[in-house]
């Protein structure tokens, strides 16, 4: 089916990593925009209102948690689903953050690239499901 291209904002400080994952996503048919730090990322999120934000955790300056918290705290960006794409292992810290914040998903960077694309697609599908379900009850 012909649907409008989904926009993904990918925030990561490492350009090679950005190119690798961003390129794979683009190859899979997503529209990817990049930001190399939290401030730029938030600015772009406000301006373009992407369908999903892919966020690295460990970055110079503000780390992923802080950025996620801020994005979630701002009205315009509060409802954009955030997915962590990180080299961090699933720790207590992440678990806590996931429960506190509205984190739609968590993907480890060591994941196979094709698997990565599948996971992104799956998260979109789940969000769609949920939106439909919520809409249904509202109607």
């Amino acid at each position, binding site marked *: 089916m012909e649907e409008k291209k989904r926009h993904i904002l990918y925030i990561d400080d*490492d350009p090679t990593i950005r190119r690798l994952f961003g390129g794979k996503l683009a190859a899979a048919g997503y529209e990817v925009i990049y930001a190399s730090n939290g401030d730029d990322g938030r600015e772009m999120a406000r301006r373009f209102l992407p369908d999903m934000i892919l966020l690295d955790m460990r970055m110079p300056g503000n780390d992923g948690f802080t950025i996620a918290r801020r994005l979630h705290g701002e009205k315009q960006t509060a409802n954009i689903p955030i997915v962590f794409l990180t080299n961090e292992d699933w720790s207590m810290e992440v678990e806590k953050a996931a429960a506190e914040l509205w984190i739609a998903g968590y993907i480890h960077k060591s994941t196979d*690239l094709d698997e990565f694309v599948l996971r992104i697609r799956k998260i979109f599908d789940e969000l769609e499901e949920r939106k439909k379900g919520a809409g249904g009850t509202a109607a």
Partner: protein
Amino acid sequence: MKRIINFIFGSGLQNKFVLLFLLLASVPILIVGSIALYAIDLSHRHDVSNLELALLDEKTRETEKFFADTLGIIELRVGFAQKSEIALSEQEFLLDGILEENSAFEEIRFVSLDGLETAKKAKYSVAGLSDVSELPAFRKARLGETFIGEVYYTLSGPFISIASPVTNRSGDIIQVLIAEVSIKELIDSVDASQIGSAGYLFLVDTNGSLISRGREGRIAQGSDLSGSSRIRDVLGGVLFDALGERDRYLGILSGIPVIGAGKKIAKTGWAIIAEWPIEDADALLRDIRALVLRISLVAILAVFLLAPLFARRLLGPIRALGEKAEEVSRGRFDARVDIKTKDELAGLGATFNKMSEGLKRLQELKDEFIFIAAHELRSPVTVIRGYISMALQGDGGAIPPAAKEFLAEADRANQRLVQLVADLLEVARSEAGRISISVAPIDIKEPIRASLKELRPLADEKGMAIAYDPPRELPNVFADANRMKEIVVNLVGNAIKYTPRGGAIEVSHEAQGNAWIVTHVKDNGFGIARDAQAKIFEKFYRVQTKQTEEITGTGLGLFIVKQIVEKMGGKIWFESEEGKGSTFSFSLPIARA
């Protein structure tokens, strides 16, 4: 008792301290005590001797003075030169004068040179004149010597005869004076003498007869004591000074042990003896001796009780240091000692604390370093992996087969790097206590099956069978499902790696009581050499043999597995025989419904 012994004697060092203290304290006490006792004893003996001799001398002087006085009175020398007797009237007058001069005189008479009494006067009554030519008193005086006779007793007491010649101006003997003298006063004076509270004096005459009865009064006056060799010795002129061992004997009068002194009174030939019952004489000495002994004992006892306290005070910090050093050696670098002795030990404690603090910092730095290094490695490794896989998939265009082979090789090497980085991070986390495990009651068959499925391609490649036939009803255990997979992948992965082609691996369960479920991973592979067995769970340890040299690994897997198992409350162990295979087993606590 046992507790007291334990209190006094403990470890080796404490025993040494206690013995040293005892030696240092007791030896001087014993030496000083002994010297004091010896000195006191010696001085006491001399005191006793001096006391007795002084009294003997005093009484001797008294006796000699008595006889000097009485004899002096009767040693008459007339003023004329002719050899004729004194006129009778004159004689009577002189006798009256003598009786009046000294009350000791009882009777006195003039005797002519042929032994006939010429005049006679007495205190109370006078008998008639008689012939005394046979009396030894007369005979001796007739020859010009003074005479002191033997003691004799009348109703009015002890008496003694004394005699002296009467001479004219030219020294010719013209008559003899014989007197009867009462020695009661002298004897009373001796009898009244006392040494200490029970010591006494007594007199014995030349024949060995007791003159005075002493304060003792047990033996009658006149008793013959010549049977005593001591009396004989004294009469023979031997001086006993109460210093020698022979001067301690059974008292002649009292019959109880005494310290005795004795001497001969030259003038009369009598013996004067002092006897002081030892019991009385040494009473003070005994008290002092008992006191010294008691003080010594108390001091030694005090040392016995104080020494362990001192030793403990010294040893406490040393022991604390030992314990903490032991902790540090086990890798617990936050061990701190608290020594407040304000001496070198406190300094040592502070240094120790600094040292373990430094070690802790070092450890933290190392962990941090590994963590950061491993983390930083991840990005490039990820990128390499991603691009290789994209290249292999032909995303960038067709690749010649040879290049594809190279890329595959690079990919395998990169995979190993990925694993190493992951392991290092896990180790760093585990050492920093940040390993995250969330246990819940789970059915471990699930994660085990999932892991085995993951490993199947690896096993198939080496033509190996993995048998897993768990019982249908296996109790749930407390475990973390993801970590459980890690354990199984590691253990079974090792089994595959270290078993030659065509080997067999078996995973099985066993209930240990109703507390534990033990999972065994058994292979029939190379096994582990005995000397390697102790190190198998150590970090970076890898068995180096011909068979294993081609096998790749980080040497961290088993270390991580052990940390995880222990974190989940279980234990891990293994049995292995070289050439026959190994069985790794780990236990997990059963979760009760």
